[in-house]
């Protein structure tokens, strides 16, 4: 019933997180009936996005592409950050939540996924080589594992702890206190700060 182009737009919009079929349809109708100007601007912004904003090539955070064409995030560019301390998180949102709590003086590495054979993610699907490269390049001494306290988050932390402790690094896990099975994102800043300050050493095993 709807023109093909519009159907296509609705399909694209409904892929956005938190947007269902109905909302996507409402958005699409809005573009058609209300504001051509807004639609043009949004289209342009989306088009430029790919060229100007990328994942940080070092840590995976969101980064603005510099004049030299390199994508490095503000944390990686900040010379006051302690490069010997590395915090490993699952997602960019977790990194942002920890940054907000202002309790991290080192740098980050975003895994992008968690160990989960059920979801088809084994050790080989984790970006371990990138991680080891950064650990070597920055001569990292201490690693904080800040994956979420879910089963997959804990398993990822255990796996990384084993692999990193083998390289002579000091490895610790954020203290539990973030909601169980929950997202770091939703933990409040004080709780997150405490979780990082109260981290426990992890020697590849657990007490």
């Amino acid at each position: 019933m709807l023109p093909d182009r519009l159907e296509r737009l609705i399909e694209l919009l409904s892929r956005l997180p938190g947007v269902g079929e109905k909302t996507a349809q409402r958005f699409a109708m809005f573009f058609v009936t209300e504001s051509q100007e807004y639609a043009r601007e949004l289209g342009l912004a989306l088009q430029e996005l790919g060229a100007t904003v990328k994942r940080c090539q070092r840590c995976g955070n969101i980064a603005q592409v510099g004049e030299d064409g390199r994508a490095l995030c503000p944390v990686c560019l900040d010379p006051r950050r302690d490069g010997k301390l590395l915090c490993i998180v699952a997602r960019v949102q977790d990194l942002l939540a920890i940054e907000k709590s202002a309790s991290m003086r080192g740098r980050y590495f975003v895994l992008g996924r968690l160990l989960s054979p059920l979801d088809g993610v084994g050790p080989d699907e984790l970006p371990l080589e990138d991680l080891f490269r950064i650990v070597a390049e920055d001569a990292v001494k201490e690693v904080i594992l800040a994956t979420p306290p879910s089963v997959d988050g804990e398993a990822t932390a255990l796996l990384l702890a084993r692999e990193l402790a083998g390289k002579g690094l000091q490895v610790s896990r954020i203290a539990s206190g973030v909601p169980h099975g929950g997202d770091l994102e939703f933990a409040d800043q004080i709780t997150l700060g405490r979780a990082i300050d109260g981290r426990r050493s992890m020697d590849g095993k657990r007490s």
Partner: protein
Amino acid sequence: MTALIRFSNVTVSAFRNLSRIDFEPAPGLNVISGDNGQGKTSLLEALYFVAVTRSFRADKLESLIQQGQKFASVRARVLDGEHGREQRATLGHKERAVLLDGKKPERLATYATRTPAVVFHPGDMELVNANAAARRKLLDRIALYLDPSSGDARLSYTRALKERKVALDVRGPSARELAPFEQLMAEHGVRFARARAEAATRLLGALAPAFQRMAQPGLQLVTKYRPGGSLDVAEFVGELSSRRLRDSRQRAASYGPQRDEIQLLIDGRSARHHASQGQQRILTLALKVAELECIRDARRAHPVLLLDDVSSELDPARTGAVYDFLRETQSQVFVTTTRPELFPTPGASKLERADWQLVSGALSEL
């Protein structure tokens, strides 16, 4: 002090064949009679639903909604010791909503553990005549009252168990992701096995006297709880890692609380395979009485007891024993039957007993 829990002022709407029921149950025993298919089980189901937001017989909650209607809903005033509250549970085709005193509770679980209810229905016979899965579920229900965090531990354990299985299936016994998941199985498994073991001790402790008072005199009941794993993390991890090859061949974990078993023997023989139907039914009822007592002691409140069609297959003496128990219990009881004449309670007051009749989904007091 053990609080008395009572439903009063119950309204059921568009729930199975019950279009609309308003009733004021007795604080004691409520006998609900009616012919087949009139809505007796549905009424118990409605009471169970407003207490715990689940059904004891439907896999798909949607089937509770009256055909052609959008929402089923049950509202009840619940007296809990000194306190009273208003509970309301509504079920739509896509969602479930609950209100506690008119407010949305923080979590569904806060609502669902508030009003303890114990139910017996014919499907519960699987506690005795089927494999151990149903008995483990019974233990988990009790464990949740003993240690509310045991539910989360069980879910985490199950997740880790599945992750290990897929890792074994796909990458074999030397996969390096096995160790982390085995460690987590052990940590969560121990936490939840501990709650289960405590539940088993209490349940079996209460089962023996309950069986004795209801069963034929002279029957010998022997029960045994056999844990499938360990309560020691290191031992648990060791067992798992030494069983990888075997588990990968069998495509199932041979160690852990998913293999917990409760054995029930009557006169030295397995109740599942050798007991008569009436004996199985009495044993199931005794398990329910034991569940009631365990939850009562853990929750310090007398759970509401819902009994569906208890008397079929029981001889008059067994029926009498069951009713002796119902007369003595401090729980509020709802019992359904097609033959109300089986349950005389001479001299009972209006508070102690009310009789109801269901005809085509309409309830009237007798």
